């Protein structure tokens, strides 16, 4: 049993390493396939006026004069020693930048998920409680809205409505982290989390509805009901409890996407998260910033998936047994 577990862990670790290496190669190649480099990103068309000697001096400065393969392995080697590279633009190490932006996005992701669960699960249960009824239609409508309204539209609308009508725009102030000013931080996170959470609530609602409908038709539910278990207890304990596995899967997946996918919302609300760090890195062709940050996001994604797997086992004894 122990050997089996160890084997499984080793396989998992190897898989993770393989995935991350693949991501590293892919990002490295894609970045260099984008036209331009740090010189043209910084100087723009002014780069046309550089003399060859000036060009060479800049290439040396940015480390672009070395062969690509050497650049790749130098970067990867450095990653292992905890040197994520340096952002010339920010005059800071990429590790420092990441250590600041990752918690911000993680917080935003957690808040969004909490909001999404708070909206999606009850509405999904409600919708399933009477399939094809008016309340089911309402649930479907909410879910359709969540899926179809683009985040940028919802974000700009909320921002301008709140700012213009109520003067509520904590995002126009300097950003405060949770540790610095919890109250301001939560106010600044409210609108972005709402926008993201609304988008994720939709798939969670749908999953909940489907799972609840499926569980309800199973024998043990009928048995419990026949034994006189009160309806509320039946819904929460028996039905929802057993419908949790797909909901957890869906939530885990969404959380993974949120870590890298909050770019647009972070942009509009000026939330200094990791999505914006990548975006900025791409625009400035700061190769080290993009490569290292994307790798961190990939690692987080893998870890969240791992955590989801562990959660299954806790929730569903059948998974444990298999």
């Amino acid at each position, binding site marked *: 049993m122990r050997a089996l577990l160890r084997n499984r862990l080793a396989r998992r670790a190897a898989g993770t390493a393989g995935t991350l290496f693949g991501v590293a190669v892919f990002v490295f190649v894609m970045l260099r396939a984008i036209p331009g480099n740090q010189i043209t990103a910084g100087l723009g068309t002014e780069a*046309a006026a550089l003399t060859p000697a000036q060009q060479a001096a800049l290439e040396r400065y940015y480390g672009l004069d070395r062969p690509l393969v050497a650049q790749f392995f130098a970067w990867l080697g450095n990653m292992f020693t905890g040197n994520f590279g340096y952002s010339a633009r920010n005059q800071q190490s990429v590790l420092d930048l990441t250590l600041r932006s990752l918690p911000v996005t993680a917080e935003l992701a957690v808040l969004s998920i909490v909001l999404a669960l708070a909206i999606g699960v009850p509405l999904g249960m409600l919708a399933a409680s009477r399939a094809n009824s008016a309340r089911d239609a309402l649930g479907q409508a909410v879910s359709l809205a969540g899926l179809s309204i683009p985040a940028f539209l919802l974000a700009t609308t909320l921002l301008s409505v709140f*700012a213009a009508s109520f003067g509520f*725009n904590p995002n126009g102030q300097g950003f405060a982290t949770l540790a610095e000013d919890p109250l301001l931080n939560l106010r600044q996170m409210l609108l972005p989390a709402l926008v993201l959470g609304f988008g994720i609530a939709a798939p969670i609602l749908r999953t909940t509805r489907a799972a609840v409908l499926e569980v309800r038709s199973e024998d043990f539910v009928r048995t419990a009901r026949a034994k006189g278990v009160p309806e509320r207890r039946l819904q929460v304990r028996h039905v929802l409890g057993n419908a949790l596995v797909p909901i957890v899967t869906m939530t885990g997946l969404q959380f993974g996407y949120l870590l890298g996918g909050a770019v647009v919302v972070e942009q509009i609300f000026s939330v200094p998260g990791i999505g914006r760090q990548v975006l900025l890195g791409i625009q400035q062709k700061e190769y080290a910033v993009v490569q290292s940050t994307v790798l961190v996001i990939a690692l987080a994604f893998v870890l969240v998936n791992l955590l989801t797997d562990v959660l299954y086992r806790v929730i569903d004894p059948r998974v444990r047994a298999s």
Partner: protein
Amino acid sequence: MPRGTLSAAALAATLSLALTSCSSSSGPAPSAGATGAGGGKGLVVGVTSDPDTLFPWKATQFQAVNVLQNLYGTLTEFDKDLNVVPGLAESWRASDDGRTLTLKLRQGVMFADGSAFDSKDVKSSLDKIMDEATAAVARTSLASVKSVEAPDAGTVVLKLSGPDAALPANLATVNMAMLSSDDTEEKLNGTPNGTGPFTLGKRVPSQSLTLTRNDKYWGAEKPKAPTVEFRVIPDESSIVSAMQSGNVQLAVFNDPLVAQTAAGGGTITVAKTPQLNYHVLQLNARRGELKDVNVRLAMQCAIDRKQVLDTAALGEGEVTGPITAPAFKSDPGKRPCPARDLAKAAEYLGKAGKAGGVTVKAIVSQGEYATSVNEAQNLKAQLAEAKINLELEVLESGAFVDRWVAADFDAAVALNGGRPDPDGSYGRYFTSDGNLNKVAGYSSPTLDKLFAEGKATTDQAARKAIYDQVAAELENNAAWIWLFAGYTYTATTAGVQGFTPMANGSLQSLRATSVS
């Protein structure tokens, strides 16, 4: 596209997504109401991105230039009408043969670190800017300088290869900032050390950058606001809502639509300023059909510039000739075909032996500035009516820059930067040995001679006459097709006083701005 880069970068940041990351580890940036030593309220300026470098000799990004201008001093400066006025040099005098320029330096000027500024710093700065290894972007502006001498602490003598009337204006850009001879690029990247009205206070990467009033500043007028915070809000519309809720007091917009939204609310005042930057259809006279001057002239006659301005930029701007600088401005009425003339266009095509029509390929950048694609489509539609097929190649801005830098295009829809001095604007494009001549695609002995004459005289009226001839020569040969110059929009909330917008987009009057 020299200073075009600036506005292009600003616009890029504006209209495509911009930037930012990381939270502060040392507390939130000072709030709008922060009161500093010396009284007065801090000013918060909304910007779409933060500086990509703090090293003035390499800064071309609009935001970087705006910040650095307030930190560093230059030998000369521009006043609000873009006339050259004394800066760190109190006066300057050219010798009779024009081969020597002697500058008298201001006394008692100090760097932010407390060290004194003198001729040694000027010599070291200019020498380093001229050194190719520094990769300073203003290097070519010193092309006529053979050597720099510092006979005493208060005097600098520039030995020139010939008269250079554009030199004093060239010295006024922040790319010519005077640095302490003890400083290195590495040091300055983290800790700016200039002689400007402000010093660097706090910086939170990609979030905010705060300037603090320099009480040792040499200017007669000390900065009014104790602090100026550049707060990064990547989206222009989000800046508008930050202004509506009072978190930000000043911002400069490039997108007319955003400016209109801002002005609509009633709490924000928006001032329009004509720009030196100009929108242009660049033609490469060394390639394909465009080698024939008649084809280029036909294109020129087939375009109604006002229509391009109206359809692509909501009419927000002015139709312009080559020179946009107020003191040397070209008269668009004097060009060939000042109004659209399809008959004339057909005539030129006939002369070129292309009565059946021609095809010209044009590169267009997507996302570098708001109006590019709309301009290109309008140009295409207008030219089609003259049997000229403008084949558009719409490129992501990085790809556009790559192609542009390599001069790998027949025509290009571009937003180029103008400068207060026409030699600075066009000398490097349209003289045969200009470093951007490859990209300009046109030069002639006549233009070489005119540009040389323009540099050789300091008489303002004579120079104006010479650059009128330059403009005429450019348009008579349809080197490019100049379209229009837009506006920038300075938005301020109530209580902001003393800010003067400038045609080069400079925020130098932040030093005179106060908030009540």
